[in-house]
């Protein structure tokens, strides 16, 4: 028995040997995932599990826009096929489904992979495999501040640091006497946001409360903010924690002004979460949020007359899945629009290297739904450069400022409305 095994092993080894020297290969650019009439892309999203409400709608928005583009002839004659894989917001699953997307489905590019922790599990793999990793659905700086290390990865939404800077600057100018409390998620999101805020109002901050995602009891944090006498709370938190912080404050009789970052402020989602978390006790969640301050970088469902919203409404009613257009779907639609722009810019014969080069070259001038221009260059892969401060009343946001544009570090904040007036092209597809 042992001898048989040994012989078998030797035979196997012998049969495989003698491959000779290693062949050299020098390709001008990879065209994996591209055929004459199709282009296959993919993304990982939480379709199941705790993070699914809200976030699972983003890929449906993307898909609707690709279907719209395909119905109108595609890009350079190619139809876009979008493969969505569920990772349940678990990084182990993200690795597995990304392997599937890259190695089995052989996608040309990853578009809109969602979440800081899930995506950081695959960002090195995608760059090692030279797969364009476009428009990550997260505002962490790491997607764009070091393009030398991650040449294939691009951010999309404004990063958390510039959002913090813009919020801090606004508070300094408009509420110079406010005692500011910070309510932060204890990860990059909260840390980068705090860094930006402190640049302007370090001396106004009276208390910092951090929560860890998953722990739903935020009473100690809110009580600490109350005890410190904060009368304006800046929240860098997800929608669930906007709802939780509102409920706890209601219970404690704590009535400061609230300023939530764009991530956690979708009035429709927060309103429904409020009624769910309070088991029906809070029915008019949207009104509870009256007077809430936040920021906005793409027009949302509260502005149905915006030309971009009219386009999204048309795309969604023609090609959308079940359900109404939501801000998460608008996010996906807007992201998809940027991808189609990038693909157009990459020319009739796109390659993986080519689309990266095209975004670095032309990305700064992509005119789209975002109110501020992108920052894409060879030295920065960070996304949208600014936003405006908005006050929410009855679920509808009203701009308090023009579009404020900035960059990391001590880059100044300036007013720049140039991109806000961009209109969708006739036909709704970028050229």
């Amino acid at each position, binding site marked *: 028995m042992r001898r048989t095994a040994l012989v078998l092993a030797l035979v196997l080894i012998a049969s*495989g040997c003698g491959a000779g020297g290693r062949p050299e290969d020098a390709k001008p650019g990879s065209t994996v995932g591209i055929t004459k009439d199709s282009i296959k892309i993919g993304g990982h999203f939480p379709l199941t599990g705790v993070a699914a409400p809200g976030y699972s709608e983003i890929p449906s928005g993307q898909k609707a826009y690709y279907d719209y583009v395909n119905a109108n002839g595609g890009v350079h004659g190619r139809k876009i096929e979008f493969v969505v894989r569920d990772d349940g917001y678990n990084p182990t699953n993200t690795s597995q489904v990304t*392997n599937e997307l890259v190695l089995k489905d052989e996608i040309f590019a990853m578009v809109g992979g969602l979440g800081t922790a899930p995506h950081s599990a695959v960002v090195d793999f995608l760059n090692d495999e030279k797969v364009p990793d476009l428009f990550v659905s997260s505002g962490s700086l790491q997607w764009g501040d070091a393009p030398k290390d991650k040449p294939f990865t691009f951010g999309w939404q404004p990063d958390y640091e510039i959002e913090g800077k813009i919020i801090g600057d606004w508070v300094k100018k408009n509420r110079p006497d406010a005692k500011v409390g910070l309510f932060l998620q204890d990860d990059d999101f909260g840390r980068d946001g705090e860094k930006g805020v402190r640049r302007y109002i370090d001396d106004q901050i009276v208390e910092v409360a951090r929560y860890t995602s998953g722990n739903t009891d935020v009473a100690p944090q809110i009580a600490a903010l109350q005890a410190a006498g904060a009368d304006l709370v800046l929240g860098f938190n997800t929608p669930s924690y906007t709802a939780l912080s509102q409920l706890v404050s209601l219970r404690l009789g704590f009535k400061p002004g609230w300023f939530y970052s764009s991530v956690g402020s979708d009035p429709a989602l927060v309103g429904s979460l409020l009624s769910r978390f309070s088991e029906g006790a809070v029915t008019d969640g949207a009104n509870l949020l009256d007077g809430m301050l936040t920021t906005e970088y793409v027009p949302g469902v509260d502005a149905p007359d915006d030309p971009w919203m009219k386009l999204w409404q048309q795309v969604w009613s023609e090609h959308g899945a079940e359900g109404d257009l939501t801000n998460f779907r608008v996010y996906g639609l807007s992201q998809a629009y940027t991808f189609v722009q990038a693909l157009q810019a990459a020319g009739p014969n796109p390659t993986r290297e080519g689309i990266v080069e095209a975004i670095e070259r032309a990305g700064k001038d992509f005119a789209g739904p975002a109110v501020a221009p992108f920052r894409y260059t060879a030295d920065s892969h960070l996304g949208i450069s600014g936003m405006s401060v908005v006050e929410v009343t009855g679920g509808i946001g009203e701009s308090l400022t023009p579009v404020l544009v900035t960059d990391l570090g001590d880059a100044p904040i300036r007013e720049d409305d140039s991109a806000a007036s961009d209109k969708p092209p006739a036909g709704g597809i970028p050229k």
Partner: protein
Amino acid sequence: MGRRHLLVAVAGLILVAVVLQLADPFRTAQFASMAYYAIAAGGLTVLTGLNGQLSLGHGALMAVGAYTTALLLQDSDAALPLLVVLLVATAATVLVGAVVGVAAARLHGPYLAGATLALAVAVPGIPLYFSGTLGGEQGLAVRVPEIPDWVADAAYFVTGQELTSVRYLAYLGWLGVLVVFTLLANLSASEVGRTWRAVRDNEVAAQLAGIDLGRARVLAFVVSAACAGLGGGLLALSARLAAPSGFTLTLSLLLLSAVVLGGLGSLTGALVGAALLTFLPQLVTGLGQDLGLTDVQAAQLAPLIYGVVTVLVVLLAPAGLAGGLRRVAGLFPWRRANR
């Protein structure tokens, strides 16, 4: 007995080499995943099946192995060879396992389940608390070290293909499976294994026979923890990240369900269970999409089918899939004559 297990391992090695050589890159990556699940499930099946201790905390023990690996692989030019890193990860988990095991030896049944459940819930909180060193919510990135030149050259010489990092990890994982399973099989066939079974079947009788219950239980827990630690280390290498969201209670429960599905106490069963954990969700989701379900529906189909399969196995093959297969095989006369 030991010799037979060694032979099976050698045959397994050849099978692994052939399968990994034929598999496309994605399947290879799946085999790498199956390997870490198999090692952890192998340890758990010995603990639960042979020694009768129910652990709901093996996901947390995997986290210990994963985080140790991640901490040792922070620099791009890692000082330690990969095998040493995995051994250190295993050793660290053994330490944690020993502490938990000593406490667990005093408990049994639902109390032990409760204590290990607490472990599963508490451990993912540790990286959040020490977010400075352990990376907090977004975890620690793991840099898979470069494949050593001699390994790459040897692999190229033998197979004529460049050894990819995915295939390297799959080989490493399956080498781990073969070593661990051979050791576990020998252990289970030895005096130690008989002691464990005696403790499981009747504590009083075991004590009367001069067996130290506590020692047997702690040893079983430590062995099992070592497997979880190695599995966790390999998981961190495959996932390229150690993050709390990868080691929630769900992982512990999935491991336990894999062990039950495969057949409690059976190493073959642990392999079958690991295969189900790895391949079933992806196959079912793919099938759902082919049938025209939306992405969300197809994604929701996977846990549903997994649940249905579990119920069916418990109803139709109470000894698990491996046990069920053995029973079917036992119906054949030549097999019976062999006994």
